[in-house]
Structure formats: C-alpha cells, structure tokens
C-alpha cells in the first residue's frame, strides 16, 4: 500500500492535521491559532449557513469574467501577432513590459479609473491572464513544425480551417500551459485584491469573507476561508486541468 503515491500523500496530510490539532490544543489560544477540529467545524457550519458558498460563487463568477475577457484579448493579440510582423513586435514589447508586473500592483490605479467594485477587479484579472496566455499561445504557433504546416496546406483547407484544425491543436500543449499559468496568476490576484483592498465590500467574495471574519475575530472562520482557497485551487489545477491534460496532450503524446 505504501507503494501508492496517493496513499503516502494521504498519510502525510493526516500527519499534518494531527500536528496542527496538537499545536492548537497546546497553544490553547483560538484567537491566534484555532485547532484543526475547530476549523473543520467552522468550515462545515459556514457551508451549512450558505455564507461560504455565496462567497465562493461570487469569487468564481468574478474570476471567470476576468479570465474569459483575458482569453479573448489574448486571442486577438496572438492573431494580430501571427498575422503581421509589427503585431509580433507589439506582442513581444508588451509581454516583456507587463509580464513582470504583478497584477495586484495595478489595483490602486484601477480603483481610480473604474471605482470600487467588479470592474477594477476584472481589469487586474485581465492583466493577470492576458500576457501569460498570449505569450504561450504565440510561442506555440511559432513552434508548429514546417512539416505539419505543409501537411495542413496540402489538404486545401481554408485559412480559418487551417488555423482551427491544424495550428490550434498542434500548438495546444503550449496553449494549455498558458491557460494554466494564466489561471494560477488570476486566482492569486483575485484573492489578494479582495483581501487587501476589500474592493468588493458589501458584495463579498472569498477574500472578503476572510477579511471580514478577521475583523470580527472569528479566527476559525478565517482558517476555514484559507482552507477553501487552497481546496479550490487544488481542484482547478489538479482535477480540471489534469483531466483536460490527460484527455488531450497526454493521450496524443504531445506533453512538454
């Protein structure tokens, strides 16, 4: 049984929970560090009251808006870059400039431009997604081998058919990497934006849930919120993206 990686990891997780529980009990200060059992109870009761699920659905909705908008813009930018030389230069300059800039650094200025609320957050989310996806997609298109290109042209496909049926699947490993990196950036950015600035105060996302519970000194709830952030991140990265990866690039023997 110890040969199975999943089993070993479950054992380690159990150990970590035990250490957490032990330290919490020894410290006996729920305001600083609640026990694991208290956190789980807080998590369950927050879920039962619907408070946490509302926060999660708010956060995910916002995230999807920003993510999709970012993907559309990345698609346009990549198309422009692939079609013209000036477009390629444009993409290179923009990604070189903006990729190193953490999106959260744009939030203060976004607040001035778009005011408190969803639009500012969507703006920084687009920034988080756009460059990673555009850069990877463009690199993927460029790396499509000349043999595959010639094979595609040999079939007499239309330009649109050639792009969607040859170039996109051929570049898919890179595109998927871009999607994953973009998602990771967006997720971290969104929680930070909600948390630090309380931008979406009143409407309340997951970051806001953590922030507000801290203000009310409901520390087990804060931990429950953090746990939720971790769980959601794990689900998206290790379940959703993993499934896509197994059904596509792994199956095709194209993983990088």
């Amino acid at each position, binding site marked *: 049984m110890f040969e199975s990686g999943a089993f070993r990891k479950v054992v380690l997780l159990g150990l970590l929970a035990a250490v957490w529980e032990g330290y919490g009990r020894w410290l006996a200060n729920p305001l600083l560090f609640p026990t694991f059992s208290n956190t789980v109870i807080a998590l369950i009761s927050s879920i039962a009251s619907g408070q946490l699920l509302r926060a999660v659905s708010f956060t995910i909705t916002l995230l999807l808006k920003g993510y999709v908008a970012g993907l559309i813009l990345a698609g346009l930018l990549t198309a422009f870059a692939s079609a013209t030389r000036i477009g390629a230069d444009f993409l290179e300059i923009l990604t070189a400039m903006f990729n190193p800039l953490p999106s959260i650094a744009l939030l203060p200025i976004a607040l001035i431009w778009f005011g408190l609320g969803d639009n500012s957050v969507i703006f920084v989310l687009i920034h988080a997604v756009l460059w990673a996806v555009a850069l990877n997609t463009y690199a993927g298109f460029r790396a499509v081998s000349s043999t595959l290109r010639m094979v595609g042209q*040999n079939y*007499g496909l239309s330009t649109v058919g050639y792009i969607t049926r040859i170039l996109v699947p051929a570049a898919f490993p890179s595109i998927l990497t871009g999607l994953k990196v973009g998602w990771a950036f967006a997720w971290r950015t969104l929680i930070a934006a909600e948390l630090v600035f309380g931008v979406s105060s009143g409407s309340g996302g997951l970051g806001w849930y953590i922030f507000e519970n801290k203000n009310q000194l409901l520390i087990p709830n804060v931990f429950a919120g953090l746990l939720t952030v971790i769980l959601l991140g794990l689900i998206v990265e290790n379940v959703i993206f993993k499934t896509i990866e197994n059904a596509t690039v792994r199956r095709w*023997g194209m993983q990088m």
Partner: protein
Amino acid sequence: MSLLSVDGITLQYRTGKHSFTAAYRVSFSVKDGDRFIILGPSGCGKSSILKAIGGYLKPVEGKILLNGKHIDSPGPDRVFVFQEFDQLLPWKTVRDNIVFALTASHKFARREAEQRAATFIEKVDLTKFAGSYPHTLSGGMKQRVAIARAMAMGPEILLMDEPFAALDALTRAKMQDELLQLCVESNFTVLFVTHSIPEAIRLGTRILLLSPQPGRVKAEVESEGADPARIHEMLFDGDMKGGNMHV
C-alpha cells in the same frame, strides 16, 4: 500527353540580400503511371523541386503544369509524403488522420472516407493499429500511415521526399517492396526523391539525374537494367569524389 511537365524551372531562396540558387533550368516530364525518381547528392535541389511541384515554392523562371494547368499553390491533387515522422497529426488516431485528410480536402464524404481509410490501412497492414495515436507507432509504421493517407486521397501524383531515409536498413528494404507493390497494384503516378542509387533503381521506372549546386539535369535514364556504377559515373562525370552517394 504527359501528366506533369516541368519546364525550365529555376528555384531560388532569398535570405536578406543574398540569394541561393537551388535548381537551375530543370526540365522533365512525368507520364501517367510513371514512377519517376529524382536522384542526386545532397544539395542538388531535389527536395526544392518537389516543393515547387507541391506548390510550396514558386519558381523564379519556368513553369510547372499538371494536366496542362499551372501550379501555383498546394492542393490535394498532389499529395506529399515527407521524410519526417511528425507528418501525422499527433492528436488524431491512425484512422482519423486518414479520414480527416479525405474529408478536409473535400475529396470524399464522411462515410466513404471511413471506408476508404479502412481499405488503405488494410493495404499497409496496420488494421490492428487503426485506433492508435501516432506517438505509439514505430517510425516505419508512421511512414506507412503517411503513405496510406497519401494514396487514400487518390491524388493525380504522389510526391515522396525521401520517405524512407530516416528508417533503419531492414525496414527501408521492406518498405520499398511494399511501396512498389502498392504502386503496381493501383497504378499510382509517383515522383520520388532520393539520394540512394539502389533505391532509385529498385523503385523507379525512370530516373532523372541531377548535379549539385545548383541542381541541373545531367541525364534521364530508364531504370530497367540500369547499372549503379554507370549512374554514379554519370552523376559525377567520372569524378569519384561524390562521397555522399550510396552505391
């Protein structure tokens, strides 16, 4: 009348200010049912000539006619088989690679394409692997799929660019026999590029000899009863320095 006529084509590549002439005023014609071999050492522009016929490269002078029509872009009437193993679409199974080629080129409707794919997969003896993805196949199997795909498309002419060059010697010999049998069976017209004299004699009905840099026509010979040493001599004007020729 000839199926394909190549009339005095010169092919050049430009890189910045420099231009490099790959082939100079090359003429030949291929008749229906020919297995026409273009033979020459590396750098004689033979692949470039094939690319020009494929429509990927425009000649700076001369013209190429297929059935009397000018060739100016790639099309499914001239199907390529490349040397590289990555010519199959990795995201499609063996069967789907062929079906896609047939339907995307609007040559066949879906149902007919599927039947045709099955027939040609059978011909290259890969029925067991029809549902496999290309990355699970060996190099020789991939080339067989590529050949099956090209033949299934039913082109006017098959353009083969050293399809067996990256294979081991045993597989290569086997593939040559298989290709020969398939061509004879279904009377395909093939234009085959190679740098191997034995391969040329084995596969071809007629052989065009090219000299290197830039490629020019040296001679055209019938492969029936051709003598390898004589061909080598003709290619290099008796100059035995042609080191990269396989005799």
